[in-house]
């Protein structure tokens, strides 16, 4: 397929962010949109993620984003015409320290004030929610039943298919090599297949967004950390229906509707070499977490392990804004491991900003200038 020479909007990256932004722009009537992807659709961080969706957060901004995203996920099948694999088994958050539990209870008050019905649950109730659980050493649990997970591939493809029906042009195997700008305004992109003139360019390049920003002369403090994850063979459903997560012990485990189980944890040393390798250390430590927390999984076999990049910012919150230095250059990156779950709402909000409207949830505080000003919005609830 030939590459257009001009477009109204060029979106860089065909993960959940790029596909959601392209869809929302097209739905708003923008006609000539091109999405550039250096590999295949959903081949980067989105397709490698743990698939969780939650509103249990520690900052107001993330709670608002989380709840709005859940509301969108709940009607996504109808809106996009494709099943996105939504499963709302809740998130069961486990606290292993008193101080951690106190923080979670504070977060419950914040969440409840924003319409998120999270509650503290006893160990007995936690075991009803998660029948395979064994956590005698836990101090407390919190639960929100509308949290859960969706299929990152199907969700991204659903956005892509819907965007295509609205005329969006997707170009795979097309790598951006430069951003062109003049007198403080973006004018287009250069790729390995030629250049495209465009007055609006969106950086949704996930783990490589800092490189794309640099091409436009925009400096953002993002870094990309390799995180690892594994999946087991399918077994009887009902061992771990919710997303079981601990912030102090840095793990999450969920069971897909077909019975296979997914588990990930924060990496030792936080490797930042852009590699996508896997380690035996992870395989062993994650397996220890599985058999300790869910003893019934002892005989379950691991089928596959892989890794992906978390695009981190100093406060673990995203960058969602127009660049100050280069008008028409927009950024949607730095999601710090929760870009998939926010994709449906962040795409809508950035579209509103690009169209010059007031985003329905304020995003001013997600401008990258907050890092220079020292106005960080640190999110504590991250694995």
């Amino acid at each position, binding site marked *: 397929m030939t590459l257009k020479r001009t477009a109204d909007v060029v979106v860089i990256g065909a993960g959940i962010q790029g596909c959601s932004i392209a869809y929302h722009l097209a739905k708003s009537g923008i006609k000539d949109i091109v999405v550039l992807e250096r590999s*295949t*659709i959903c081949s980067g961080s989105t397709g490698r993620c743990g698939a969780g969706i939650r509103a249990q957060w520690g900052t107001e901004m993330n709670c608002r984003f989380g709840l709005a995203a859940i509301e969108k996920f709940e009607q996504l099948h109808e809106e996009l015409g494709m099943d996105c694999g939504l499963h709302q088994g809740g998130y069961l958050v486990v606290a292993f320290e008193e101080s951690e539990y106190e923080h979670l209870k504070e977060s419950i008050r914040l969440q409840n004030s924003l319409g998120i019905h999270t509650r503290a649950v006893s160990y007995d109730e936690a075991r009803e929610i998660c029948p395979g659980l064994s956590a005698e050493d836990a101090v407390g649990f919190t639960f929100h039943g509308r949290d859960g997970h969706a299929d990152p591939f199907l969700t991204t493809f659903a956005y892509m298919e819907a965007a295509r029906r609205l005329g969006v042009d997707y170009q795979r195997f097309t790598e951006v090599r430069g951003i062109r700008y003049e007198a403080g305004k973006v004018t287009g992109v250069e790729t390995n297949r030629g250049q495209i003139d465009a007055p609006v360019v969106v950086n949704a390049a996930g783990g490589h967004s800092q490189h794309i920003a640099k091409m436009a002369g925009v400096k953002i403090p993002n870094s990309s950390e390799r995180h690892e994850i594994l*999946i087991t063979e399918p077994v009887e459903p009902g061992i771990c229906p919710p997303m079981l997560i601990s912030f102090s012990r840095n793990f999450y485990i969920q069971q897909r509707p077909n019975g296979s189980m997914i588990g990930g944890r924060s990496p030792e040393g936080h490797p930042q070499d852009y590699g996508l390798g896997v380690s035996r250390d992870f395989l062993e430590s994650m397996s220890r977490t599985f058999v300790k927390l869910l003893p019934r*999984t*002892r*005989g379950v*076999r691991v089928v596959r*392990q892989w890794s992906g990049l978390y695009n981190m910012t100093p406060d673990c919150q995203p960058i969602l804004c127009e660049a100050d230095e280069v008008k028409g250059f927009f950024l949607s990156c730095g999601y710090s491991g929760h870009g998939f779950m926010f994709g449906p709402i962040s795409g809508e909000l950035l579209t509103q900003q690009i169209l010059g409207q007031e985003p329905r949830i304020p995003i001013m505080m997600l401008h990258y200038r907050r890092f220079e000003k020292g106005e960080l919005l640190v999110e504590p609830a991250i694995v």
Partner: protein
Amino acid sequence: MNEREEEIVICRCEEVTLGEIREWIDRGYQTFDELKRVLRVGMGPCQGRGCREMILRELSLKTGKPVSEIHPGTFRPPSKPVKLSLLAAGGDT
């Protein structure tokens, strides 16, 4: 394609038929990895040992490229499924 051919199960782990594979190739999912993402072919316990060659052949028929020029998709460890208890013990049993 006759109906019986369409119903042949190509990926037994995820129960995906030849008809489904051909349908999604026609919809533009023309690499092994894209078919894997949308249909989960090759993601089950056999990790594509049963279906990969057949799917590459279908891609070859559709795209006109010889199988040798079609990317076979990503192979991920472990090469055979391993029990969590064995991994948790770090290989010592």
